[in-house]
């Protein structure tokens, strides 16, 4: 089959590779129909995620048709059309039973790496480095899905891929970011970044009862997309002091909650390229948490900072005194995608939200390398790339 493989920094290529097969009883094989490129794929593209290997198949926003199931699969059937969550969860461990799916104990065969780096390993992820399990991703013609009954959402017939594909990641991620804000009716939410997760978070924050959403970015097209949903926007290139501006816009109080939908990308970051180097560089390696710093600084007293943006290493000059002084609450982490997929599908089917608005480019799988280049280099116009595979 054809698959998009990571070949090194700024290099991804379509390769012909063997088809995936059932390796464990609860596996399923899925014929991919649509696969998106995620903002977090750019961390890989930029070469900043440790424990990648040349030839790894990328992609964690995937949907398609089940073509084979293992003997341990109970619910899913051949022919089912499914969306696949980006995190891989066993469905049986303590964390899965508590619906903390991204904290799954069992799915990561390389858990020992993350154990050593983070103290505990979270769930494995599709196509996202060997520390996170080394599972082949979905930017390919076929994908193997472990624990298939847990890691799937069956989509009813008659609804197009584009409307449901983002149940795999960015819609649940935006939703959880909003949920983590503890929004009360009438609240003001400020969101750093206007990328795809932010676009989802804007809509979800309104759904959750926010009265105002203020989005900060410096790409005008992205800000316009947020404004279409009713957000107020700030181009931070044209703003001298974001804290003061947000204070002014909120009557001196500050936003009730702040979402950092940027993460370590804010000014690049320096996660060393291997676990050993991470160890060696302890105390030196730092993510660049500029969005996070501003979010902490701007947030109202007693407010909440919600962090869907990805961090990997060590943070420098985080204004923790401000966080303490204002009594802030922090909520963060990988999305418990499996928890949110069904209720969000219900919202889509009820016409309450249609995440397909975020798509700016549709390409064939063969053109995926071009998709990565555009998404990386032309952030103003290229907001979300979807690969059409079958």
């Amino acid at each position, binding site marked *: 089959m054809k698959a998009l493989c990571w070949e090194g920094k700024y290099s991804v290529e379509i390769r012909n590779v063997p088809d995936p097969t059932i390796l464990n*009883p609860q596996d399923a094989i899925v014929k991919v129909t649509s696969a998106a490129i995620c903002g977090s794929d750019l961390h890989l593209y930029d070469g900043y995620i440790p424990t990648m290997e040349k*030839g790894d198949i990328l992609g964690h926003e995937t949907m398609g048709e089940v073509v084979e199931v293992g003997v341990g699969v109970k619910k899913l059937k051949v022919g089912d059309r499914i969306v696949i969550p980006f995190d891989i969860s066993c469905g049986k461990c303590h964390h899965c039973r508590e619906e903390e799916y991204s904290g799954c104990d069992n799915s990561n065969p390389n858990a020992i790496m993350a154990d050593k780096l983070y103290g505990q390993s979270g769930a494995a992820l599709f196509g996202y480095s060997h520390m996170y399990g080394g599972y082949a991703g979905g930017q390919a013609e076929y994908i193997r899905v472990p624990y298939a009954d847990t890691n799937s959402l069956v989509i009813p017939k008659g609804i197009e891929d584009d409307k449901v594909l983002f149940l795999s990641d960015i819609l649940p991620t935006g939703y959880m970011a909003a949920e983590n804000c503890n929004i009360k009716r009438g609240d003001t939410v400020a969101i750093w970044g206007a990328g795809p997760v932010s676009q989802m978070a804007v809509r979800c924050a309104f759904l959750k009862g926010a009265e105002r959403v203020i989005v900060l970015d410096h790409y005008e097209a992205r800000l316009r997309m947020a404004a279409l949903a009713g957000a107020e926007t700030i181009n931070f290139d044209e703003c001298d002091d974001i804290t003061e501006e947000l204070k002014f816009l909120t009557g001196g109080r500050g936003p009730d909650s702040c979402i950092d939908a940027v993460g370590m990308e804010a000014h690049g970051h320096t996660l060393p390229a291997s676990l050993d180097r991470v160890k060696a560089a302890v105390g030196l390696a730092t993510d660049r948490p500029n969005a996070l710093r501003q979010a902490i600084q701007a947030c109202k007293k007693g407010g909440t900072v919600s962090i869907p943006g990805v961090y990997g290493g060590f943070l420098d000059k985080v204004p923790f005194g401000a966080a303490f002084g204002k009594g802030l609450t922090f909520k963060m982490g990988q999305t418990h995608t499996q928890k949110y997929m069904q209720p969000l599908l219900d919202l889509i089917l009820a016409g309450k939200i249609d995440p397909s608005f975020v798509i700016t480019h549709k390409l064939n799988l063969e053109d995926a390398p071009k998709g990565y280049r555009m998404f990386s280099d032309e952030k103003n116009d290229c907001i979300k790339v979807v690969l059409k595979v079958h």
Partner: protein
Amino acid sequence: MNNQYRNLNQQNAVHAKNKRPLPYGRTYHSDDVSRFAVTIGKPIEEVFNFWRNFQNLSFFMKDLKEVEVLSPTLTRWVMELKNGVKATWDAEVTAERKNEMISWKSLPGSEVETDGSVWFSPAPQGKGCVVSLVMNYSAPGGKVTEFITKLTGEDGDTLMQVNLRRLKAFLETGEIPTTEGQPNGREVIPELKH
């Protein structure tokens, strides 16, 4: 130093078979040489029985090809690495208390000397069973040391942690997570290479 502390210092390590049951929710005896534990969401009886049927150990212990049960207390262990290097040894159960602990030790004169103990105790909040494992390997010729190093790319401690994780995964989900055999772009079909 008061008497209490003097007594602590004078205590010798207690052999596993002489140890008292672990207090509820506790994982370790104070003199355990190695401290690795995992909480498995299954009843203590189920976990104990799984382990006590020693042939099951090869389901989750890395590169342990087979454990043959020769008698209720005697087992033959066969370890084989991917490169085909093999080691075999016989081990006997040296202590056992149902649903609480098992200790074993290789017979004198084995090509590798190894002993281990595993303890089972109830986890708090109905979270199942805490399993803690201590395994010691020594081989005069260094064969197993080399073995272990090759096995994990690390050391015996890492191997124990990995094995405990695999035990947990196997008992909770019925399978051990793997990516071995999945496709990647490192095995490109030449004529179709872009």
